[in-house]
């Protein structure tokens, strides 16, 4: 069907160009008080370029855009390291209860006891899950949780007269946030190699550890999806040199009810509520990144923490607090959802979460291992990292494989990360996916492997079914167009 009259695609233009002067999508009450004098025009805005849309066009526009998104509710989303599990719908309802969403952060504490009780419970449960002592729910996201944890390390060392510890060790398999965080906290970053098994290289670690080291930042299981069996020894090595062990809790989904950071020797850890505890990722936030710490670091937690006082709850500032990391108390709306998640699962349910996450990842490993190179050939935890090196030998890159998966209706895995795996394909199925979903996904990847052999061009030109083809990212970065501008004259 082409050439005939048809309804134009409303999403093809921006809101600024869609509207017409005089249209509006909102209705506001008339002014019911005597109008005050406005300040002189020099202090006022002359013009405000915002869209002028009718409400129906506004709704159609954003609905049209929503249809151009892939989401967990659209289908399998095995984005490694991101834990794209299903987000329970009842949580959305609960977080929107007026008794939660209508609370002003500066209301008298007597009027917010239910909210504080919820936060207090959540603090206790996170301490129990991680085997650590003190919890702050304030950090806004995993990355801010990392920064918080590293600032606590810095303040703790300074108090002990050990400000000379200026270096932070980060394994080469780490998320980019770890080195970026260490730098933001004022530390120099020293990269530590991994060994041939995908664990931290304990010899390299031993030689990097000296009196100038403040901490080792470790992700467990690591970004290869592997549990480092030497963790006890590593913690001991770090502590013997007077340094602290920082834990990146991004991969906690593998360990729930199985092992705890505190028992293994971690001093401070951040968690990602949007990963482990099922809160929606929102297209890139809001997340929530609580920090949990051992007793010696607890006095350094950011303010406020929720404390019990008599029969009620108060907001308290830890004795040696590093201060505030946000205007208020963290992402309360996200915390309500995480609370609901923990209440629904309970202890046994949490263990089931990790069991199924690990079974699912190992099942994908087993099914794809014949066709895709597994650089660290051992059982994985909650995610598995393959290399596309065999396919690249046939002229098809991991990026092509990812784009071809889109044609088969799947969200691609994380690609080219971790950096230590050539042509990496990082697959995290999560526990909420069924065997059928995994089989369909593995079938697609096995088909792409055959296509790489038989008709590589089809893979290299993918996606063929998406609303748009591969975009010119080089030009986007070289000649950035980052905002709408009114077209002048003929639009040139």
């Amino acid at each position, binding site marked *: 069907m082409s050439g005939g009259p048809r309804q134009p695609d409303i999403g093809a233009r921006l809101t600024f160009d869609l509207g017409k002067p005089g249209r509006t999508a909102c209705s506001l009450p008339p*002014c019911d008080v005597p109008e005050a004098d406005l300040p002189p025009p020099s202090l006022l805005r002359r013009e405000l370029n915002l869209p002028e849309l009718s409400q129906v066009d506004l709704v159609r526009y954003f609905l049209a855009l929503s249809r151009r998104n892939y989401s967990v509710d659209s289908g399998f989303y095995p984005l490694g390291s991101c834990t794209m599990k299903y987000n329970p719908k009842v949580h959305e309802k609960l977080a929107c209860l007026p008794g939660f969403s209508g609370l002003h952060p500066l209301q008298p504490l007597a009027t917010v006891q239910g909210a504080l009780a919820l936060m207090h419970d959540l603090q206790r449960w996170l301490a129990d899950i991680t085997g650590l002592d003190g919890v702050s729910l304030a950090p806004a996201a995993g990355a801010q949780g990392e920064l918080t944890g590293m600032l606590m390390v810095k303040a703790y060392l300074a108090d002990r007269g050990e400000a000379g510890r200026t270096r932070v060790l980060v394994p080469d398999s780490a998320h980019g946030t770890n080195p970026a965080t260490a730098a933001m906290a004022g530390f120099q970053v020293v990269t530590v190699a991994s060994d041939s098994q995908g664990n931290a290289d304990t010899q390299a670690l031993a030689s990097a550890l000296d009196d100038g080291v403040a901490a080792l930042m470790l992700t467990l299981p690591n970004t290869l999806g592997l549990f480092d069996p030497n963790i006890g020894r590593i913690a001991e090595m770090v502590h013997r040199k007077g340094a602290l062990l920082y834990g990146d809790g991004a991969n906690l989904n593998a360990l729930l009810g199985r092992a705890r950071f505190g028992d293994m020797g971690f001093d401070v850890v951040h968690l990602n509520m949007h990963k482990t505890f099922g809160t929606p990722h929102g297209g890139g936030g809001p997340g929530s990144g609580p920090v949990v710490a051992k007793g010696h670091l607890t006095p350094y937690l950011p303010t406020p923490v929720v404390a019990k006082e008599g029969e009620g709850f108060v907001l308290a500032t830890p004795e040696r607090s590093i201060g505030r990391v946000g205007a208020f108390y963290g992402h309360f709306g996200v915390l309500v959802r995480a609370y609901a998640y923990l209440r629904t699962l309970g202890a046994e349910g949490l263990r089931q979460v990790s069991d199924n996450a690990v079974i699912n990842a190992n099942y994908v490993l087993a099914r794809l291992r014949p066709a895709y190179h597994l650089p660290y050939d051992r059982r994985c935890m909650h995610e598995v990292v393959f290399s596309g090196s065999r396919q690249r030998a046939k002229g098809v890159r991991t990026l092509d494989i990812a784009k071809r998966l889109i044609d088969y209706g799947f969200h691609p895995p994380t690609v080219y990360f971790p950096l230590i795996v050539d042509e990496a394909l990082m697959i995290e199925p999560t526990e909420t996916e069924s065997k059928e979903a995994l089989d369909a996904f593995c079938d697609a990847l096995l088909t792409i492997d055959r296509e790489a052999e038989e008709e590589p061009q089809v893979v290299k030109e993918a996606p063929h079914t998406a609303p748009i083809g591969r975009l010119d990212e080089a030009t986007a970065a070289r000649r950035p167009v980052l905002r709408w501008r009114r077209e002048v004259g003929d639009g040139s």
Partner: protein
Amino acid sequence: MTLPYIANTAADRQAMLAAIGVASVEELFADIPAEFCIGELSLPPALSEPELVRELSALAGRNRPADGMPCFLGGGAYRHFIPSVVGEVIGRSEFATAYTPYQAEISQGTLQTIFEFQSMVCELTAMDVANAGMYDGASALAEACLMAAAISGRRRIALLSTLHPHHQAVVRTYAFGRGLAVDVMPPDGLALSEEHACLAVPQPNFFGYFLPDVEAVERAVHAAGALFIVSADPISLGLFQPPGEYGADVVVGEGQSLGSPLNFGGPYLGLFACRQQYLRQMPGRIVGRTSDAQGRTGYVLTIQTREQHIRRERATSNICTSQQLVALAATVYLAAMGKQGLRQVAELCYHKAHYAAQRIAQLPGYALAFDDLFFKEFVVRCPRPPSEVNRALLERGIGGGLDVSQYVEDGLLLCVTEMNTRQEIDRLVEALAEIGGGA
């Protein structure tokens, strides 16, 4: 045990374990040393959905939301009208359950809305470029100060003393990391030197007031070779001159007012915009417009060499997310309000706040603390301690203001928005008269 959020049946698990080649799930956890394996966690027993709804509703019921009564509390979190279309759009799971749009071909929805957001923030602030969003107004301010330090190579940050105290605290936390000094100075006692990377200024300030002579401040900042950072209330920008027109180099702001509920303090939204020349030092996600091989327009994450996943320890910030769903709410809000609506909201706030201020100022024992131009908040000196006034207001079913007596003697910070009707304001005035009369 059957769980609604786990799809595998016991039979599935058996089949999968067989395919993996293990006899039990325990074998998959064999890498965890036995000494670290734990027994059961001590969480409360699991709840079914109806039980969960009952329990959480009971917890919510133990609160007394500001949103459920006439309320005059501001101080960095505001009650503004949220059109129904906002909830409708951000409730779409296509937006809510997606993640960072790395795969542009199947993320055009999110990417195009970010481009819209960046455009609207630029229009609102009169700046050249904006990022996709940050955690909140306070952290956006802190990131702006770090950016100024990185650009200038200077090691001191200057803050105006009238910035929100919590925002000042967040700047101090971030500055501690980078080892930067923070100097707080009053508007009438600016002491800027060539060591200062920036001066950060609130417009309006924590107490609701605008600087009497912002041009003079701008000149002083630039004379010192520092960056001029303005933290603005985005709703005020519907009516007042945008910071880009009075020389701001970076504009940040708390975006909660733009379509998000109070949520007991979060999630909120950091707005961040700056001049073109600082684009490559900016923190956060940025989306750009480009095209595919067939010339079709599309949007991608761009200028990524600033970011942690590429630049690692040399990144401009460690931030990964863009507070996307809250930024989407702001985008839909601004599109719904539009050119006329945002001005109307700002004018309603202005007129109602001035009506309230003028009436309260006439009450015996009460006085306005400052004469400067204000927007929707102002400080009243009370005849009794503000904490007592607030308590007495709450007894009358009115959410009072914020006790700022630690900064202004007997000061009560009141906020009036388009959500407050004349009837509510009159009730407040009458109640204050009663409460003050007993003094």
